[in-house]
Structure formats: C-alpha cells, structure tokens
C-alpha cells in the first residue's frame, strides 16, 4: 500500500517535470529548433517508460511477463505502421519534387 503510494507520487512528479521541461524548452527557446525537437522526443520516450513502470506496473518480474510481451508486441506493430508510413510518404514526397 505504502510502496504503491510512493511509486504513484514518484511517477506523478516525474511525469510533471518531464512535461514541464519540454514546454520550457520550447517556450524559452533554450536550444536551436532541431535540438529542441530531438530533446522533446527523448523526453517523451522517457515519459512513456515512467508511465509504464509507475502507473501500469510493468516490470521485468516473471509475474508481469505477459504484460511485457504484449507491450513489446504493440511496440513492434506501431513501429511497423509508423515507420512504414514515414517511408512511404517521404518516398512519395521525394518523387513529387
């Protein structure tokens, strides 16, 4: 119970600050655009992991193995769909030039 509470608090704060940093970078223009974009992406990825770990309780423990499998599977499908879409559309766009 207490452990859970601490995890949730930690997750909440982490998520909040990760979001905050991203917004701050854009708002105060701390970095040039390309670097900002990269940073926001990285922060978003970290945030995904925080959510999974703290809120969805995904871990490498045996009991959570099935969940982990499902997440990896989803990640693969999303990678296929998003990656494929990017390849196709950039290809089309290049040929329109």
């Amino acid at each position: 119970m207490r452990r859970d509470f601490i995890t949730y608090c930690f997750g909440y704060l982490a998520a909040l600050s990760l979001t905050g940093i991203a917004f701050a970078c854009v708002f105060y223009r701390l970095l040039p655009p390309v670097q900002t974009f990269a940073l926001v992406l990285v922060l978003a990825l970290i945030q995904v992991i925080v959510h999974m770990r703290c809120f969805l309780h995904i871990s490498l423990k045996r009991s959570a193995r099935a969940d982990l499998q499902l997440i990896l599977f989803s990640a693969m499908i999303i990678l296929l769909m998003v990656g494929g879409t990017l390849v196709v559309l950039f290809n089309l766009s290049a040929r329109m030039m």
Partner: protein
Amino acid sequence: MTFWHILLGRLTWDSLVFVEAWRNPTISEIIGGLAGGVAVLGAALLFGLITILGRWRYLWTVWLTSLDHKKIGIMYMVFAVIMLCRALIEAVLMRTQQAIAINNPGLVAPDHFAQLFSTHGTIMVFFVGMPLLTGLMNFVMPLQIGSRDVAFPYMNSISLWLTVGGGIMMMASLVVGKFSTGGWSGYPPYTELAFNGGVGPDYWIWAVSLSSLGAMMTGINFAVTVYKFRSPGMRWMRLPLFTWTTLCTAILMIFAMPPLTVATLLLAADRYLGMHFFTNDLGGNVMNFVNLFWLFGHPEVYILILPAFGVYSEVVSAFSSKELYGYTSLVIATMVIAILSFTVWLHHFFTMGQSAGVNSFFGIATMLIGIPTGVKIYDWIWTMFWGEVRFSTSMLFSIAFMITFVIGGMTGIILATPPLDYLVHNTLFLVAHFHNMLIPGTLYGVIAGYYYWFPKAFGFRLSEKWGRIAFVCWVPGFYLAFMPLYVMGASGVARRTQELFDPALRPWVIAAEIGALLLLAGLASLFIQLYVSIRQRHTTRVPVGDPWDARGLEWSMSAPPPEYNFAVIPQVSRRDPFHWQKINNGAYKPADHYRDIEVPKNSMCGVLIGLGMTACFTGLVWHMWWLAVCGFTFSLGTAIARSFMRDVRRTIPAAEVEAQHRRWLETTAAALPIPRHLEMTPENEGLAKWQG
C-alpha cells in the same frame, strides 16, 4: 434559420426516395423507391408481427438486453444475415445491370450504380463479414477455453449495439437521402465537400465509424478473454485452433481499427470543420488517407479470413475423426499471417506513385504470406489423409474452400507483382480476385461453422439435404459468377463500370449473371434449410450435445448449453480435452460438489448506448445538431449511470446447477451411443460411440 431548419437540418421532403421516384419516375428511381419501400415495409412488418404475437417482452428480456455471450453471438449472426440479404440482392442487381447494359443505359443510372457498389462493399465488409465472424467467435470461443463468459460481457453488448446501429444507418440510407458513391474505400478528394456536398459520404463515414468502434472493443474483449479466462490447465499450446485464430483476429482488430477511425474522423473534420487533411488545396494530401485506409484495410481482410481458417481446422479434424495434423505449424502459421498482414498494405496502391524499390519490397512481403497459408492447406489435407472422412455439409464447404481459395491465392500472387498489377489494377480482375478470397474465405467458413455448431446452439441438427442443395448453389454459383470476371478484367474492363461497349463481352456477363442468381438461390436454400430443420426438429434433437464425435470442450455440455456453460470448470490436461475424456471414460460424470455460479444480469445499457450513438451520428449526417448533442449526452450519461450500479450480477444456487447437471446426465445415460456412420440419422441424440 427557421425553426424547421434547426429541427430537421438538411432533411427535406426531397430527401425521401419515394418523392424522388414520384417526381422523376425513371426505372432507376423506381428501383430505388422500391428498395426504400421494402426497407420500410420490412421494418413495419417485423414490428407489427412482434406486437401482434405479443413478443416484445420476451424479445427484450431474453434477447436484446442479454449479456450472455452465446445470445450476443447469435444476435450478431441474425443481424448479419439480414444485411447479407440486402447486399446480395444489390450484387445481383449490379450483375443484371452489366448483363443488360451493353451499349444501352440499362436499368440503373450511373449515380445509382455507384451507390450500389458502395453500399454492397461497405455492408459486405463491415455488416456481414465482421458480424458473422464476431458472432461465431462470441458463441464458440468461451466454450472452447472452458470459460463462463467473455471478459467484459457488458462491453460485448455495447459492441453489438454499436454495430447494429451502423446497420440501421445503412438501412436508413435506403429511405432518406443517398448513400456515398465513393466505393467502400471512400477515397478523397472525391468524398470531400468540394465534389460531394450531399449526405452520402457522411452516411459512409459515420456508419463505418460505429462499426469500427464496435469491432475494436470486441477485439479487446476477446483478447483479454483468451489471455485471462482459460480454464486451469488450458495452456497456450493446448488451445483449440479456432481459439488461436480468434486471438489473432482480436489482436488484428485492436491494431487495425484505429487507423480507420482516424482516417474517417479526419475526413469528417475536413467535411464538417473546414480542415484540409485530404483536400486538393491548402496542403491537403490524399495519400495520407489512402495510406491510413489500407493500414486498416489489409489487416481487415485477415480479420475476415483468419476465423474461417479456425473453423476449417475444427471441422476437418472432427469430420475426419483425427487429431489435427501439424497443430504447432498451424499455430505458428496463424501468428505469422497476423504479423505479416501489417507489412503489406501498400499492395493496394502500387500504382499511386511510389518508387520501384518500395513497390518491390511490399510485393515480396505480400507473396511471403503465401507460405504460411500454403502450410495450412497442406495441414488440412494431411488431417483428412487416412481419416474416417464424412462428407457432411461442413466438410463439403471446407473442401470447396481449399480448392477455390488456392485459385484465389494464385491470382493474388499475380496482383502482388507490381508490373502485372499495373496492367490489371482497378479492373474486374481485382474484383474477381477478392471475391475469390472472401466468398470461400469468409462465407463458406461461416456456413461450415454454422452447420457444425448449430446443433450445439439450438439442440437439433440442420437438414443435411438442404445443406447439400445450398452447396450445389454456392460453389458452382461462385465459379460461374466470378471466373468470367477474371477474363473480362484481363481484357481490360474497369471495375465499377455501369455500362459496357463491347458486344463480345456479352457471353461473359451473362454467365456471371447466372452465377449471381445461383448464389442468391444458395442463400435462399440456407433459409429453406433453416425452416425445414425447425419443422423436423423432433427427429434431429441432440440433447446430449456431441453429435459429431468432436474433440473440444464446447462439446462437453448439453445442447443448448446452460447459461453458465460449465456446471464445473473443467480441468484440462492435454490438447483435444473432451476427446481424451471420452476415451478414458472421464466424460459425462457428475461432479463431487457444485458451487454457486455468478452470471451477469441482463442490462439495457448496451442497447441504450448503441442507439444513443446511432442517434448522435444520424444527427451529424443530417446536420441536426441538437440530435447529435442529445444522442451523445444520452450515451455518455447511460455509461456513467451504469458505472454506479453495483447490483449487476445474479447468483445461480449450487442446488439448481446440480439438478440441471444431473438431469442432463440422465438424458445421457438413456441415450444410445451412435457410431459415426449413423450421425446423420434420427438415432443420433448427440452421444458418440467412440472407438478411440
């Protein structure tokens, strides 16, 4: 803004097909008016009949509000069959048009013809194929894994009623307004406001959205059920093959429906909010829609075909009295197909401008799917080899499937070769190809499964004679209707063509017409089969529940099954558990002790949410904004109210469970065990004499 305008939005007298047919009585309009009339009369007749017979109460309390997966499954199928009647009649009308319209305008005007292929395609995919298979999976899968229901019975009911709501919208489009003329794929920019200001594309967008929401929820429901609700000992590699295909289908539904919903909603944003996602101007890009649509579209065809693969696996094994050959390879093949189906979507637009490199990649990926599919075909053939094969209706359809599907696969390889696709894309060759996959791959599978599991669902067998008559219509009917299309397509006839100009095509279109009529006769024979079987039910009862000497857990209880499926949850120790129970004399035994069983209470919330969303989307189609807001608020309110209800389960006391179970065991003890060659005779009471 007058009051009427706010109340009715775009709806006027002229939107009624009857008014249109009255003003402008061409044959095409009169056909439209007649179709609308049939829809209205049919609905009125149905309502009237139920009222006269005083069956509303029964219907509402026993069926419509039920959360029992078996009843929901059956309702899915009844709904789909109604839609199938319409879509098949439309198909015959299109064929008749092409048979007549060689150098003359024929029966239906171009715009009407376009509505016909758009509704036919949309209905067949979203409101026939998917609900038929969802119904079958709903009924069978929980029984096969030894579960008492699906994971989320209430969500199951919502899925059903969202899908039915989409069907209601499709039917409404027969009577008020016109449906889209943009085909089942609804490509913009043609479906954008600039070219299509009417209600047609909106009907398509919202009907399809309802269906895809329902399907996605079904996917989640089934996947969780297979993951979490298997009975003890039912390990992964002990699952029946139909359950495997259900799981893979469910996963496809989860991942394939969202791209479609995104595509239709973005198109709606273009049409309603003045956005420019897919318009020709202001930075819109049509290819985004095409890409999203086929990200959904290709997995969709596997949603339509995988469950049928599962049915064939069960049927071939049961009617050959043999263990499924190559179980592991079938499981792996199913998974490989499911994953590969996410890597090939581009073969639907080879000709839309990508480089040769991209096209070759997707062409090769497409051809790869042939390998696991081939593995399956061989596995089924080896299952029959040296088995005690009985040529029941299910088995006949399965064999017809294997041969026909392979032919379709071959033409698929042709289409997967980009240079060849450049020649035949968008011709009748393609139309022939996909019907060649979908009719054996979906409809034959559903018919085979229907015949196979019907005795389980209703307690009596279907007429074998009429099953065979249906077979003789469906199989030659298919070949006659679609083989000519290969020829016409290869000689360059475009698909979606309302009028033809080459008299040399006449023999082919007439053959195709006869084929389509045969297919219609096939559907009629299925209805006659049902009628005759109900009349003869006293001679075909199988109360013991195992008429085919089959192998899965779904055969281990009475027919029809009790509401809670299993008096005691079975303990599984190997594959084909019921078969081994029978051999080791473990079947038909009373339990040591029985427990109370909790089942979900009926709930009207599913119906209300479904109908509320239908009202909302209908309001959006007609720009009746008040209706849209009310419908949505109503659905949301119902969902919230339901989440506060605590008393949603009902307990069936152990004593009652025990009494029912013992009564069934007595029936079993009194029944005569039947050897397999007598299973079509009245002696078959559902108890098999197993010879090991």
